[in-house]
């Protein structure tokens, strides 16, 4: 069976695990541990290695979703998880501007691993303090052509929209690739 892989990354508590959990057909394989440091006031548990979800496309093809650990001290995992990815999503907690700089740092780091397509998910758009995607794009200092998409990671339809947008970007990039000679 052929598999394709996408990575969901972003700062601590940006909603990566929830994003994968909303769309995966299998219970997300989580590697969460109870938080012992000061970040515990934000959430009780965090991903320490990766989250893993799966969507079966058909009998010959499956899509794997990998979520990266958000805490900086586990960033050695990022490059390992990014190997062979089709594209990646950077989750940003739109209601916590104090994490925007970290989100940008993560994006820059992932872009050094591989020149694969990506989108930004402006998560927690149901929070009244959430920054609109266009403002977030400016705050992150992104180019105009980068897609920053509204997202609520706990809602399947919203997650679908983000995944589809990323796939469209990948498709556009694939179309720009020079045609491979036909195999005889």
């Amino acid at each position, binding site marked *: 069976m052929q598999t394709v892989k996408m990575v969901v990354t972003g700062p601590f508590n940006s909603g990566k695990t929830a994003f994968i959990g909303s769309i995966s057909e299998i219970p997300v394989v989580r590697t969460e541990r109870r938080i012992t440091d000061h970040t515990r006031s934000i959430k009780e548990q965090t991903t320490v290695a990766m989250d893993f979800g799966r969507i079966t*496309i058909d009998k010959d093809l499956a899509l794997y979703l990998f979520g990266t650990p958000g805490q900086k001290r586990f960033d050695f995992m990022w490059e390992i998880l990014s190997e062979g990815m089709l594209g990646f999503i950077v989750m940003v907690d739109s209601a916590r501007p104090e994490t925007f700089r970290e989100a940008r740092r993560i994006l820059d780091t992932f872009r050094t691993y591989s020149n694969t397509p990506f989108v930004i998910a402006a998560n927690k758009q149901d929070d009244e303090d959430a920054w609109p995607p266009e403002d977030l794009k400016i705050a992150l200092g992104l180019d105009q052509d980068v897609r920053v998409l509204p997202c609520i990671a706990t809602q399947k339809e919203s997650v679908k929209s983000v995944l589809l947008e990323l796939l469209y970007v990948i498709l556009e990039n694939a179309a720009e690739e020079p045609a491979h000679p036909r195999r005889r």
Partner: protein
Amino acid sequence: MALKGNLKDVSLNQLLNLIYLAHKTGALTLQRDSNTTARLYFKEGKLIQAAMDGQSARLTDILVQVGKLTADQAKAIRARAQVDTDKELGLLMIQNNVLSQADIIQGVKNYLLESVYTLFTWHQGTFRFDPNVLPPPERITVAVNLDHLIIEGSRRVQEWEHLRDELPDLDVPLKFAERPDINIRSINLSVEQWKVISFINSRNTIRQIANFLKMDEFQIRRIVYGLQTAGLVDVMPATTPPGGGPPVPLPPPAPPPVGRNVLLRVIDRIRKI
């Protein structure tokens, strides 16, 4: 008797001034740390030869460094020449019309000057002046007046201080500036600038790039400052701990895209979830 001391107390400029005014002959050895040493030779108050640790002082290598020969030319000359000394090698190149005598002298002179200019950025370390010590006789020597060197040295010290103020921290990575108003077509980059640019990513600090490209702090600061001034790069906040490890090259090109058919199947499936 040898003159000894610390560069913190007596600067290179002051030492050169002393050698110039006293018409001294001898070897000045500078040691920045246990691995970095330089030796300058003087005759009657003029600089005649320089040797830097880690750099070959053979004539062909010097001429490659100053752009008078290509690496391939130097290799071919060394392979064919059955001579032992630089003087014989120089004569052979002149007789075979590879370079003129003026070219060789100018090349050696440029190498001497650049070597000494680098040393003006050494603000700590020890020095020792051994009178009447001359370079090995097989080396080609030229005579460089120290008065111009001292003036240029002072200018470079000022430039160094300015660059250090502009770019105080080398343990930070660089990134490409995102300024759509910059007209890239009108910018011409030097080979050294291109070398630095090829290592720009969020994981390589300026210091790591310099170490890998064997540039000193002055050279890397000048190049980065130039790129910054041209609006091509920005300094990023530090993300990696300082260190001298090898820099990471630019990312590999994207893996071959999966077929369009595969992507359309994935899209179709997700739409139906």
